[in-house]
């Protein structure tokens, strides 16, 4: 753990945003909210699901085409720890429907992965991705940055064969309207500290004070 504590990291904005999440991320609430097909796909439950939008789009480095997104879901997933052990080699890739998911932490001890699921937007600005009808699962080992649409399609087909189905959603918070991807980091940091406290350095690192 670092000698320099950065608890002062959380900005006023982050605190305000976090307050909207806290009801769904209580530390004591470690039980999966829903377990659907727990033995298939390696994702046991969605513990937290909060939609967000970004005024400034962000590049999704987790697939080969590097699309941009300006909306998505900030989620906390209960996962099979055997699938998230850190390694430099290829790891199981986390999918949500036809998109790869950005993982914030590993969760190899806690079994909780904080992640960002990119979404397109509908014409009215709402999120196009309906998480309630979207399966989330771990596919084959690969570098996410190598995953393209062809590979996604193949993984979706495999998941369907395995019987991966959507997971029931927990209570969903209000949509967070954020200026940029930067504003997600403090939220992610808090979620890491709450749901995967063994990864304290990761959480604290995300809460580092912003350069003015």
């Amino acid at each position, binding site marked *: 753990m670092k000698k320099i504590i950065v608890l002062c990291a959380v900005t006023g904005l982050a605190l305000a945003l976090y307050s909207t999440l806290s009801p769904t991320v209580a530390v004591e609430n470690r039980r999966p909210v829903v377990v659907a097909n727990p033995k298939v796909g390696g994702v046991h439950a969605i513990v937290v699901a909060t939609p967000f939008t970004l005024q400034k789009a962000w590049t999704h480095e987790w697939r080969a085409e590097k699309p941009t997104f300006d909306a998505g879901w900030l989620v906390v997933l209960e996962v099979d720890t055997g699938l998230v052990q850190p*390694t430099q080699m290829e790891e199981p890739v986390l999918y949500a429907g036809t998109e790869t998911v950005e993982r914030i932490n590993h969760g190899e001890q806690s079994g909780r992965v904080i992640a960002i699921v990119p979404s397109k937007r509908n014409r009215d600005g709402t999120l196009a991705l309906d998480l309630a009808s979207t399966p989330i699962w771990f596919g084959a080992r690969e570098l996410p*940055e190598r995953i393209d649409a062809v590979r996604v399609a193949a993984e979706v087909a495999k998941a369907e064969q395995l019987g991966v189905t959507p997971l029931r959603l927990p209570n969903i918070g209000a949509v967070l309207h954020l200026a940029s991807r930067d504003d997600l980091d403090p939220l992610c940091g808090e979620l890491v500290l709450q749901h995967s406290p063994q990864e304290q350095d990761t959480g604290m690192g995300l809460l580092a004070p912003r350069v003015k």
Partner: protein
Amino acid sequence: MKLARLLASVVPVASATALPQLPPGIVSIDLAGRSVQEYPWFTYERAWFEGSSVEIAFDTDQYPQLVGATADVYVVAHRTSAQWELDGALVDVSGTPRPITVQAGDVTANRLVIDTGLLSGAAGASLGVGYDVVVDFDHDALLSTGDWIDGVQDEPGLYILAPTALPGPYAVTEVIYSGGALLGQDLYYPTNIAALGALPLIVVSHGNGHDYTWYDHIGTHLASYGVIVMSHQNNTMPGPEAAATTTLTNTEYLLSHLTTIAGGALQGHLDTTRIGWIGHSRGAEGVVIAYDRIFDGTYTPVNFTKQSLRFVSSIAPTDFQGLTISNPHDVPFSLWTGGGDDDVNGCPSCEQCQTFHLHDRATKTRQSISLHGVGHGSFHGGATSTFTAGPCQISRTDTHALMKAYLLPLAKHYFEGVDVARECFYRQWEEFRSPGTSQSVCVNIDLMYREDPAVGDFIIDDFQVANGPGIASSGGAMVWNTPGLVEGRFDDLDTVFTASATDPMNGITLGGTNDTTRGIVFEWNGPGFFLSFDTVPAVPDWTPYQFISFRAAQLPRAAATLSELKDLTFTVRLADAWGTESSIHIGTYGGGIEEPYMRTGCGGGQGWGADFETVRIPIRDFRRGASQLDLSNLTRIDFLFGEPTGTPAGRLGFDDLTLCVR
């Protein structure tokens, strides 16, 4: 008879030259060195760590006129020739010169300890304190006609290095901050930076599952010697390409926010023309990919230039992207490999797990440090698994001390041009190690070092030209009687380290599928085996060169290796056009070719991947004593294997036989 007249009759040798800037008759000559157990009995050196004994020696076989001469030997603070001209007074740093009478007999009769380890290497934030050695034959306490000096111009006779593993003189300030998503940074700089001018920058890019706050050992150590270090949030989970992007964005972010980061402490004190990148695992491949983008022109830096990057260093790198992308090209490149790495483990079943690929792709200066028993996670400071497999494991604390010992010379050489730092890149651990590092018998280090070809080295054979093993790449003949000699790509052909007659390169992972790095392998089991290279007619004169250099590795799990499991040695012999020969057993310098790290897995048997190490032999050592070898007219270099010239049996990989100018 005046000694100056005696010296005038001495047959000149390569290392003895009159100095036009100094009064006539003063001889510049190597004097400082260390005794060795066999011929050449004494070898001249440039550098010692504090606490080591320093000797001088007179080779009366080469200078018989010296016998009977008396002198006072001074160790003095280094002066340039101009300074000596202004002031020739001799002031010994210990207060008293050492009297000597040159004896009859060879160099073994005329060795004198001039320091028992008391000389200071305290160079502040720099590396190495220079001293000159003067032999005052006329006892006048002046550097004057007839005297000998080791150390002139900008090159001292010897350097004493303070322990490179121990902290430098500056207190360090650490600041953690973020510029936004994937721009978390952990910054280290000397607290008194305001008084230090413009300092170089090292950027640290962590690996997958690691954290940017886990590199205190690098940051605090180098900042205490005047280097700004910034370790950043690295986007490793998507892969090394994404990591490369964050190396670039974080470097740019720091350089473009100097007025605001750390309250503006770095403003005016960061030299954007001196930058080094250090990466770990996926991040170690990432820093190479980032350089490749700049080299290829697919990325143009905004706040620095390609030339700003003085070196790139990869700690246990992956190699997902292969030859065309994960390529250091022309940047000075340094590699770190942990023999106990249980993640990027080096097994040939995993192409992306082989660290040495990146090293052998580097086209200019390149160096490698292999540490037996060190795990993947031992290179960082996080409180997580060290990911270590194998016997005799090295702790994270001991690993960090070793890293510090080698990182400081790396920074000082590439940022400040401290030439003596190069000694740390190739001298064997067995005889040249920083105090403050572990003395455990488990610590085994293999160093590879190759200079930028532009310095003027002459390659006798690097086996890169596929013209068959009978002709060296320099064009001379190569002959041998060692069984099973094969020339080819240095890439284990199958997926295991299990010994196999059909896989002659077994254990060698210097090259990947598309790499072209080549060399030879061979073995022996008994006396009388040799490997010999003819000197090409164009280069019979080796006097411009300082060292014979080659790299070699014992090959794991081979019966010949396992039969003699220890440092492997052999003898190098030079022959001139007059039939004179001179031989040196490489073991006399300490060490040899290290035995494989005795790890199991990756197939049957015991012994991990081949750790090549560079051996450099001073060419002038072949002229020690009664040797009349004519270094200006050499015809052949022989390597003699088996008893009595070396280890009775062995199996070797061998490459890069080179004459080095420095």
